[in-house]
């Protein structure tokens, strides 16, 4: 909870209406004014009346709340989702930024590599600054007698239960109902590689073109971790390698180049 905040001084910080900046580049320090606060610009506000009139406005990654609206803390493009039913009834704002280094966030589904066992937890490397801990009971159907068969070096797909900057992250392989819903130990074959976080988010978007085009090439299994790791398995080594190389190259390829490359491959 914060007390009154003084109005930000001029200079580099710009105040602009949030809706005007959607799709534009925003820089850290920019202030985005929300409609509810437009009239009260410059006055001291208590954060109690920060609610938008229609519903709860979701302040997504790259943004923080401040007096008058939202404060940008990462550089990138500002995105908006319009008000609709559901969790973020008042709409959502976030900043699309590009980064390779992953920082654990609660609720993210990630691919981890088991590095060791310590007591009754597994130590899992997720690419962050600390290794995550995964209790052995956090698998579907695991009991004290029936332990999961996890070896050092195995791949785990799980989600973060606890992830903040003060403690080591904790992950689990079951959801809140106790079911695995796709999480758990990833199979033995296949290949793991790393890409940037922006590409992962692009691939996870609904109706992603890249995945659709690739699925017309060969059948394959794909696991995307929000920490930048991708696991691919296709029928043969050659097919797996092709998919790996295309996904890695998608970072720098335009849509036409990608279509050309895929056309060449499916022609072969």
């Amino acid at each position, binding site marked *: 909870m914060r007390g009154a905040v003084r109005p930000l001084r001029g200079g580099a910080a710009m105040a602009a209406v949030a809706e005007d900046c959607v799709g534009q580049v925003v820089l850290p320090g920019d202030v985005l004014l929300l409609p509810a606060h437009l009239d009260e610009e410059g006055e001291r506000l208590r954060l109690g009346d920060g609610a938008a009139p229609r519903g709860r406005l979701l302040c997504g990654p790259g943004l923080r709340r401040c007096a008058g609206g939202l404060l940008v803390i990462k550089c990138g493009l500002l995105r908006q989702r319009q008000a609709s039913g559901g969790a973020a009834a008042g709409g959502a704002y976030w900043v699309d930024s590009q980064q390779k280094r992953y920082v654990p966030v609660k609720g993210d589904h990630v691919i981890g590599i088991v590095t060791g066992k310590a007591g009754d937890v597994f130590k899992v490397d997720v690419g962050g600054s600390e290794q995550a801990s995964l209790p052995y009971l956090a698998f579907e159907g695991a009991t004290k007698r029936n332990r999961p068969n996890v070896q050092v070096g*195995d791949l785990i797909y799980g989600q973060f239960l606890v992830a903040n900057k003060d403690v080591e992250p904790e992950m689990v392989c079951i959801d809140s109902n106790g079911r695995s819903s796709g999480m758990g130990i990833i199979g*033995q074959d296949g290949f793991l590689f790393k890409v940037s976080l922006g590409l992962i988010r692009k691939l996870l978007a609904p109706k992603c073109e890249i995945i659709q085009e690739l699925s017309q090439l060969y059948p394959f299994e794909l696991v995307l971790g929000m920490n930048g790791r991708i696991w691919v398995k296709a029928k043969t080594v050659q097919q797996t390698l092709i998919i790996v190389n295309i996904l890695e190259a998608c970072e720098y390829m335009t849509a036409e180049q990608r279509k050309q490359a895929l056309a060449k491959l499916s022609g072969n």
Partner: protein
Amino acid sequence: MKATPLSNCESRFLLRAIQERKRLDGRQCYDYRNVRVSFGADYGCCVVELGKTRVLAQVSCELVPPKPNRPTEGILFFNLELSPMAAPGFEPGRQSELLVKLNRLIERCLRDSKCIDTESLCVVAGEKVWQIRLDLHLLNHDGNIIDAASIAGIVALCHFRRPDVSVQGEEVTVYTPEERDPVPLSIHHMPICVSFAFFQQGTYLLVDPSEREERVMDGLLVIAMNKHREICTIQSSGGIMLVKDQVLRCSKITAVKVAEITELIQKALENDQKARKEGGKFGFAESIPNQKITAFKMDSAAVDTNSVEEQAEEIIANADPPSEVFAKPILHTPGTAQIGEGIENSWGDLEESEVEEAAEEEGESEAAAFECQKMETEDTGTMRETKKDEPIVLSNSEEEEVVILEPEELPKKTRTQTNLKQENPSKRAFNKRRKKKRAAH
């Protein structure tokens, strides 16, 4: 930081792929990655990229007394450093086994092969010789550091120019680059290392292993050769048993690769020489490729500069003006003066406000006592103000004290901690108010 562990499925997949003679990036077993050589603005500075592995080399020279047992030879000094930016597992200051091994290989390749004529580095026998120092820095580790480092080393040595020297009797004159053109080193031949990675007890062989392949290999064979097919050094590590014809086959492959790489190096050196002679652009800035991230693509946006002046004036008008200036020093005794008064110690305040999360504070006025010659003023300045006639102080650090003192001018202080201590302890010390910059959470 700990290195990222290798998962079981990755190592299994890599070994399976190698058994099917497939590599991750689509190369053949005997193929090298792309070698790119780019030169810096100075002589003797170059960056070599072998795929994604990057090594920076810098050569420098100095006149020193020679070693007592070799009075007519110059001194060569080689140093390879694994920068922490190259891979997460590299830590500064930790002498790992890999580092020792790489340094020894570079020394054997470049020093023991006598590729540089050390006799030509002698200026006055027994008194002054040139010491040539080669520094190699690994900037990115994607496998096969030794090859990239040896190419970078020999290219930098070929590219380097030392100052011209003339000896007349007892007099030694070292000419600056403006007086006489610097002189290249005398290099007999160019030894280049080629690495071979072995898998499955020597059954499978890969040239120029990438980082993933290096993690799963059984053993490594490094052969350093020059284009005249002379082997300068050969080293096998990893404890694998190699058969004679395997080694002979590797040396034949090495001869082919070294010939190609030497040609590439000669061409790069010639291009750079031409660019410098014709006055064209040279240096690292010209050789950086443009890789656009197409995930987010935007057309360039025009910036509206119509109201910039008004905005600037508005900012200046809204800023608090500096408060009054005390110009009357009070002389206590000769040598001790007081100008203005210090403000109360706010240590108590500081601890309370550390517990709450207070918002950012504006810069507030302070008084400082200086020597009586200097003018002292109270200044309320925020860092973000940019008045046109004041220098801009940029400091992000919470601990740093940045005080710019100019005689007869306003000292500018940052909003962070400022703690000016008295130089003369006999003078009265005034405590400054300590301020901590708290980021808005």
